[in-house]
């Protein structure tokens, strides 16, 4: 204990918290950028994925490796769900002018999130679900006197890799370029022959599969509950605004900025006022750079 320098550990842990914020915001961010809608059910999808992961992990029927396999299968499953979701509920909105589509998407996705909450609460109960990292054999690592939860480290690693992959994907691949084109100028992209419906469907699927990953890690790191989705979405809003919606690595930067702001202000200034300090930092950043920390 004496060997652990609290300051270094604090900085490290605030980075890890930023990783969690980024993880739960990245899918939300790309959907907003490319499809042009706010998916207010994103937080609920994260929660539902966490619930499924919890149910699989805590069942005693199968050996651990098979359970892990099933949990990993959640990611493509959620991607498929995202494709269907876009096709049925979002596609009709995209025929409208962008501004109307954005407003309608608020109603549609908020409505969907309410349905999801109620179905969950009535079928699996209202209690929070959570798994300790011990029960999954995820160790607590001590390196150079710094103690770190491997689940949190995993989240940060994953999000950094995912952000970089996305960055490369968007630069190099055809679909990625289409995504970029749409996010820069929708009409021009359509004019140039970009398949808008397909691209937005793929983007949505990508967004929900990222939500699935977020849920799987969140149930280990924190907890999931039927009515905690919307606060998570609101957090994601703050994260992507802070980081800027202009870039794929925006959520990562925004998440780390928010995580550090919250943690450091709670440690050095006042734990009660730290959420407020985070708000003030958010507003200050916006006023200085009205489109977030990362520019287009």
């Amino acid at each position: 204990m004496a060997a652990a320098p609290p300051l270094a550990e604090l900085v490290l842990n605030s980075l890890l918290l930023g990783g969690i914020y980024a993880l739960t915001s990245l899918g939300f961010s790309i959907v907003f950028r490319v499809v042009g809608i706010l998916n207010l059910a994103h937080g609920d999808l994260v929660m539902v994925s966490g619930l499924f992961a919890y149910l699989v992990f805590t069942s005693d029927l199968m050996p651990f490796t098979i359970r892990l396999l099933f949990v990993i299968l959640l990611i493509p499953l959620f991607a498929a769900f995202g494709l269907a979701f876009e096709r049925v509920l979002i596609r009709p909105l995209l025929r409208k002018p962008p501004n109307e589509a954005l407003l309608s998407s608020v109603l549609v996705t908020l409505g969907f999130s309410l349905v999801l909450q109620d179905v969950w609460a009535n079928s699996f109960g209202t209690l929070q679900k959570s798994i300790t990292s011990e029960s999954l054999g995820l160790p607590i690592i001590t390196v150079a006197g710094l103690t770190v939860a491997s689940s949190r480290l995993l989240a940060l690693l994953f999000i950094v890799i995912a952000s970089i992959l996305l960055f490369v994907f968007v630069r190099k691949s055809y679909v990625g370029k289409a995504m970029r084109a749409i996010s820069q100028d929708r009409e021009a992209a359509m004019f140039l022959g970009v398949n808008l419906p397909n691209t937005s469907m793929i983007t949505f699927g990508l967004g929900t599969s990222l939500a699935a990953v977020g849920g799987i890690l969140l149930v280990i790191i924190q907890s999931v509950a039927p009515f905690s989705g919307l606060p998570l979405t609101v957090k994601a809003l703050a994260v992507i605004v802070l980081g800027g919606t202009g870039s794929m690595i925006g959520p990562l930067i925004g998440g780390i900025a928010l995580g550090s702001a919250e943690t450091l202000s709670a440690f050095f200034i006042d734990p009660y006022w730290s959420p407020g300090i985070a708000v003030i930092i958010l507003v200050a950043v916006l006023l200085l750079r009205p489109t977030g920390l990362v520019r287009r």
Partner: protein
Amino acid sequence: MVLIGLSRIRFAFLLGGLLVVALAVGPFTFLSLYGLNVIFFLLIFASLAQSYDIVGGLTGYINLGHITFFGIGLYAFGIFINMRIGPLFSFMLGVPVVALFAAALSIPFLRLRGFYFAVATLALVGLLDLAVGSNALAPITGGFAGIRIVAQNNQFASYYLALALTVVTTLSVYLIRTSKFGRGLLSIRDDEQIAEVWGVNTVLYKRLALIISAIFAGFAGEVYLWFLTIVAPSTVLGLDVTFRPVTIALLGGTGSVIGPLIGSLLFSVIDQGLITQVSYFSRGVIGIIFLLVGLAAPGGVVGFIKTQMVRRFAISRQRVSRVRNRP
């Protein structure tokens, strides 16, 4: 067409007038205390949604933190009335406090556009919740246990104030829409840069819109506290309540005068009806209604009715022309 338009407005005024008279005599005739409660909350949320729409619907700036004005009005009123200066002065003094707050806020916040404005204002709600619930301000705000005013039976008086507030807010929105100011706001919504080029003082207009919408919301907060006599901060500054003015306006139809009213009517009826009849899945049913309205109607319920009317009108005209064109 012009005739139809005119008569429609007259019809709306007539219907609105009748409704107001019915609601005014309600407490003495057909309305139970429970009914009065339901309509009181309906009116509060209607005026909140209506005042939100001055910025959200007319100007196109989605103010997710509209409830902060409500909260400021509520707390200002509570603090004044606890200073024993009487309800009348408290009501009057609360308004300039909210207006000043909105004016101060507009300087930095209106520099932000669209999505960024929405999120920054949303963040403000949490900040206010934090401030009024804190130990530092507890001597005047009551801290986490909430603000409490001397309990009297103010329910009837506050009901009429809420009714008056809704009427005044709605009329103001109507007057703003038909004025040069309103056309200026609409031009900002459509394209802020072009509006500026055409000589609209966008900074002033946006600021005025924000202040006007804040005053109505603040007054709603004052009435709310007078009615309830005790209000805990997290029950008005929580996420559920924060989104409500926006969702109600969207549900009814944002940017139209009667949209927010219809939205709050629909919301209250579904909400109270469901909760008291079926105890499960009430959230889900509201969710399904949001979903369907979002899918079917870009302009909410009002937009849906409008498109239906236009379609029918177009069809009937087609038929007429087809009949006429018959050789």
